[in-house]
């Protein structure tokens, strides 16, 4: 990789909830346009790591640097930082009292100060691209899970983030709805979106990731290109984890 400023650099990140240390010194770097998948069992710290990067959780120690700016420094404007980092959640977290269109345009209007007409036009264009043009006036509860999650992705994209964090975004979906969401992510990767993805979809990770990180008990135990990670993992713990995944039929 060329030695430019990385899109994201995490250094010595520690995070505890009470006595429970969830992240025990995470070091990770993402280049521009790179897609990195985080794998690991539940409770290994994948979600917490993503939430820390988006400053939704205060960190205990370490540094997080986005495009050369340290976002964990004292006194930074967290609202400004968050505009540059999009996150999509497992449970969609759409605003149930707003139409699909308003879900997508709320932040562009209120945070970026776009006029409603401009924000609407952009949102309708984005929603049209993912085949939801006829759903813009609907409320989230009228949409399928897959449609809701795609709206949530568009909502994050509407802020034109430099970095997109995806937190197990297909885990709450019925199996037949997973593909439509993953196809959208594939498209984003093809268009050069920098993404950090926590996922249980190993097939997807193998296909889309530039690198895969195996998280175990709050540490990145192993980082490798997907071809190596899934065929010849170095660590015993990684092997055990992947064996369990294969036994569950997820790879």
């Amino acid at each position, binding site marked *: 990789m060329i030695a430019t400023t990385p899109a994201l650099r995490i250094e010595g990140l520690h995070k505890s909830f009470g006595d429970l240390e969830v992240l025990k010194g995470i070091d990770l770097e993402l280049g521009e346009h790179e897609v990195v998948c985080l794998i690991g069992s539940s409770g290994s710290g994948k979600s917490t790591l993503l*939430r820390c990067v*988006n400053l*939704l959780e205060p960190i205990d120690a370490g540094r997080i640097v986005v495009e050369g700016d340290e976002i964990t420094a004292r006194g930074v404007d967290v*609202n*400004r930082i*968050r*505009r540059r*980092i*999009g*996150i999509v*959640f497992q*449970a969609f*977290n*759409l*605003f*149930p*009292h707003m139409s699909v269109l308003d879900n997508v345009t*709320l*932040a562009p209007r*209120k*945070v970026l100060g776009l006029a409603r007409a401009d924000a609407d036009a952009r949102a309708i264009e984005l929603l049209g691209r993912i085949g939801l043009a006829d759903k813009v006036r609907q409320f989230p*509860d009228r949409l399928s899970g897959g449609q809701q999650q795609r709206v949530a992705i568009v*909502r*994050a994209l509407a*802020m034109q983030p430099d970095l997109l964090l995806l937190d197990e975004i297909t885990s709450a979906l019925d199996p037949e709805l997973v593909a439509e969401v993953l196809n959208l992510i594939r498209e984003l990767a093809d268009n050069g979106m920098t993404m950090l993805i926590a996922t249980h979809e190993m097939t997807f990770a193998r296909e889309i990731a530039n690198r895969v990180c195996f998280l175990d008990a709050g540490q990145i135990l192993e980082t490798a290109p997907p071809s190596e990670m899934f065929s010849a993992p170095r660590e015993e713990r990684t092997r055990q984890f992947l064996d369990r995944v294969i036994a569950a039929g997820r790879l």
Partner: protein
Amino acid sequence: MTLSGGPLDTSDLIGLESRGGPRRSRRRLPPGEAVRSTLVALASTVVVFGLLGIAITSSPNWSDVQHAFFDGAIFAESLPKVLEAFGTNIALFLIAEVLTLVVGLMLAVLRGLPGPVFFPLRLIATVYVDFFRAVPGLLIIALLGFGIPALDLPGVPNDVFFWAVIALTLVYSAYVSEVYRAGIESVHWSQEAAARSLGLSRLQTLRHVIVPQAIRRVIPPLLNDFIGLQKDTVLVSTLGVVEIFRESSIIKAAKFNFTPYLAVALVFVVITIPLARLTDWLIARDRASQLSQR
């Protein structure tokens, strides 16, 4: 629970449906059975209420009771008068309700402000709510309604009606702020996470995401507090304001008869029932929309 269990289903209209728990799907009874159960319900209702009526009216002192409380002529005479005085109560509760909605929401938001900087505001809001919920409303009304005009402060209104509205607002905004607060806390934290992750500030998140969802959820308990506020407007009679209760007391004293009070009771029942049914309807609609979300 339906009245008849059959197709003559008035439960939605009069709100006798059982509360709590998921709504059970209505069984469709075969037509013959439906007619039969309707007739049984009708017959048993007639028998029960008929017996009750006979028991009451045939008791030895019924004519005294009837004369003191249910005098038709006095009722007809006092109803228009108390209705006219009721205009004062309506003005009292309408103004106080609007103010209560605003002040209550402000208090709830102040109490939820995080961080050490806002400690004084949180403290003020907490003490306010604790105080005005603890002290009897009648006492607040008397304190402000008698006390402040007596001071005759320059630039401060001496109008008793004004202070009555303020007193009712102080007391009920304390209750209402707790209702709002419960609503705000009932909105899942993931909604705040989603809004903040998009770059919305804490205040924008409250304004556009949390509070609109919270208010939707607390409309039924808010209406409940409003019923209380409407009734408590009669406490203002102690200040000498001629409202419905004072007016009826004047007639009562003149006629030495309690029927005017029953006219007042009837007025309150008539205005409260639609509000109560509206509350039921809103709760039912809310439950239906939650079911549709699966």
